[in-house]
């Protein structure tokens, strides 16, 4: 059952991720990214992380991507980015990233064969609900939660300082 859901979703995620990279038009990239994020939300649901799945949609697909689209529109960017402009360099890059992929996959497969991670834990029905996550967020991880507010404040100040139109 899970397999049936997982593989199509995973496949879609990968395809859309590739779409982000290879789409010549920034808007197309952004759309692919949104689609990929929705796919990921599905995968999160599959893993019982309902709260995060919702956040994924609201924050990422909603807020962040809207910001991206907004900036792309604002700057009126066209598809001026030829992906394969310099062939020789890109070949080199591809070879290297290929090596990277090989290394990472090799590693992961090694883990798989080691059998350490074969069986996931049996979890309760309440796993990953807002209540569960919220409880732990406000008890054990209350400090990161508060610090995140400083982070967002800083980001806000920074964005305003850099992007405000008044030139002084």
């Amino acid at each position, binding site marked *: 059952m899970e397999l049936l859901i997982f593989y199509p979703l995973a496949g879609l995620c990968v395809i859309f991720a590739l779409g982000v990279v290879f789409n010549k038009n920034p808007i197309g990239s952004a759309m692919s990214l949104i689609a990929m994020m929705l796919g990921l939300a599905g995968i999160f649901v599959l893993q019982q992380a309902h709260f995060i799945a919702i956040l994924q949609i609201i924050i990422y697909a909603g807020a962040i991507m809207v910001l991206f689209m907004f900036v792309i529109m604002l700057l009126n960017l066209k598809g001026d980015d030829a992906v394969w402009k310099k062939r020789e360099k890109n070949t080199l*890059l591809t070879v*290297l990233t290929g090596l*990277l992929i090989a*290394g990472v996959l*090799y590693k992961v497969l090694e883990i798989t064969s080691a059998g350490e991670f074969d069986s996931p834990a049996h979890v309760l029905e309440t796993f990953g609900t807002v209540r569960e996550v919220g409880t732990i967020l406000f008890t054990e991880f209350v400090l990161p939660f508060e610090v995140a507010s400083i982070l967002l404040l800083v980001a806000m100040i920074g964005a305003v300082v850099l992007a405000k139109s008044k030139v002084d």
Partner: protein
Amino acid sequence: MFSYCWIILFAPIAGFTILSWYGNRMSRERVGMFGCATVGLSFLVTLVALSELLLDAEKQKGAVSTLYNWVTAGSFSLNLSILIDPLSVFMLLIVTGVGFVIHVYSIGYMREDPEYSRFFAYMNLFIFSMSVLVMAADFFFLIVGWALVGLASYLLIGFWKEKTSAVLAARKAFVMNVIGDVGMIIAAFMIFDHLGTLNFLDVFTLAGEAFRPNDDAILLITLFLLVGAFAKSAQIPLHTWLPDAMEGPTPVSALIHAATMVTAGVYLVARCHVLYELAPYTMYLIATVGVVTAIFAGSMGMVQYDIKRVIAYSTMSQLGYMFLAAGVGMYSIAMFHLMTHAFFKALLFLGAGSVIHGSNDEQDIRQMGGLRQAMPITHITFLIGSLALAGFPLTSGFFSKEAIIINAYHSDMGNIVFWAIAVLGAAMTGFYIFRVYFYTFVGQPRTSVHAHESPPIMTAPLVLLAFFSLTVGFGGYMVDDFLATYFGMHMPHPDDPVFETIGVGAGLVGIAAAIVFYMTGKDRLEFIKQMLAPVYDLLFHKYYIDEIYDYLIVKPTRATGAFMEEKVERDGIDMAVDQVGTQVREVSRVISLWQSGKVRTYAFNMIVGVVIILMFVVFQ
């Protein structure tokens, strides 16, 4: 105990500080007086320390005076401390004593220079650095002093900074010295790694138990120390900076590049004799390099025309003798020669300075001649210095050099080859120095420049040094007694009349050869009538002997010397050093090019790093 000895350090550094800040606002007389006074004070304090050591044999074991604990890291701590023992006081006497005389001389020599106070500031800095070097109680401060004298030397060689050749020479000297410093530092780390301390007294006590003779560790330590010693003392192959260093003012050459700094390498070997005795292979290397440098530099000295370069090569050669002595285990003889050499070589340099000063900054001996009448005091003192250098009997050089030559054969580690080469070198010494003497003082003036005698402030030091050059040789026994506590032995006096005579004879033969080739016409006849009539008759019975000698000896020698200079020095060693510099800059350029300014390149490089690291971990 000996806490007053800190004055020896504080006086010159105070002089340096004050002169560099207020020197421009002080009158010239004041600057000169002040610059000399600080060194004089150091010298007086050294005398006090000397008397204390002489009066109380118990104190000759050495004492450490600590100012305060500087840094402590775990079990290891560095104290600001000085070591007062016979060896350091002996070196201090030379440094501050000869240093003082040369300071006085500089008052006259540098009189015309617009940057008078800067010169004295640097000179004081040098005295301070050198005092740090010889008074250091551990390897750390030894290296600090080591680097500081390198810095002072750099500043003084490049003193006339508008002169490009001087700046280049300064840089070259600095680079060479840094090579030596790095060697020293590596050695210090290895010592610390093996013994857990850098303190001289502890190191020398522990070394005997920690190392077996000719251990890899002790060999490496002594070799790395030797890199420092050779770089500082201009021994092959780290010697090329010394002749170039003559671009600096002459008092600098006298003080740094003859009497004191260049002898630091010999001092180092003597100071660490405990370590070197554990490494006989290294000792052998020292003696070999010393003796090779002695004739190599001697042969180059024979073909130079710049008066200062001849003396510079001579310094290298004499340092080679000192290393030879140290290498065969005769430390106190090395130190004895170090002392006599300090006097007569300083004398020769100052005499040369006086000549240059008197003949309007001319340094080429072919442009000189007949200065005997114009500069009588300089002439006499220079002659005394030359005789001492050549080892003329009963001058100071005679005693010390004879002792080295004879021990090169007779000591346990000596052999006949060392002896033979040393004798050859002695003959060369006599030859090249009298070649200069004859070119300069005898014959007719070769240019129309009207030479004049230097002022008394310059000739007085000459006379003083000449006096010592003549007399200190008789103090050999005293030096030996004084240093015997540190080296734990007296210098032997092998009785071997044949070898001794040959040794003495070599110097005389050199002198005679110089007379033969470089005295001309009337002067030669006159001179020969006066002094060497029999030899002259023997050698000059027929005029064509001149030509034969020329073909058999002079030309080959000259060719060898020129070859050495051209091929070995310029193309070999200098090239190698230049290449290092060029390659370093090349690497630096490549790194800069890599910095293309493009974000994607940077990201790409990061990924290359990531991939390499991941591969490393995955396939480890």
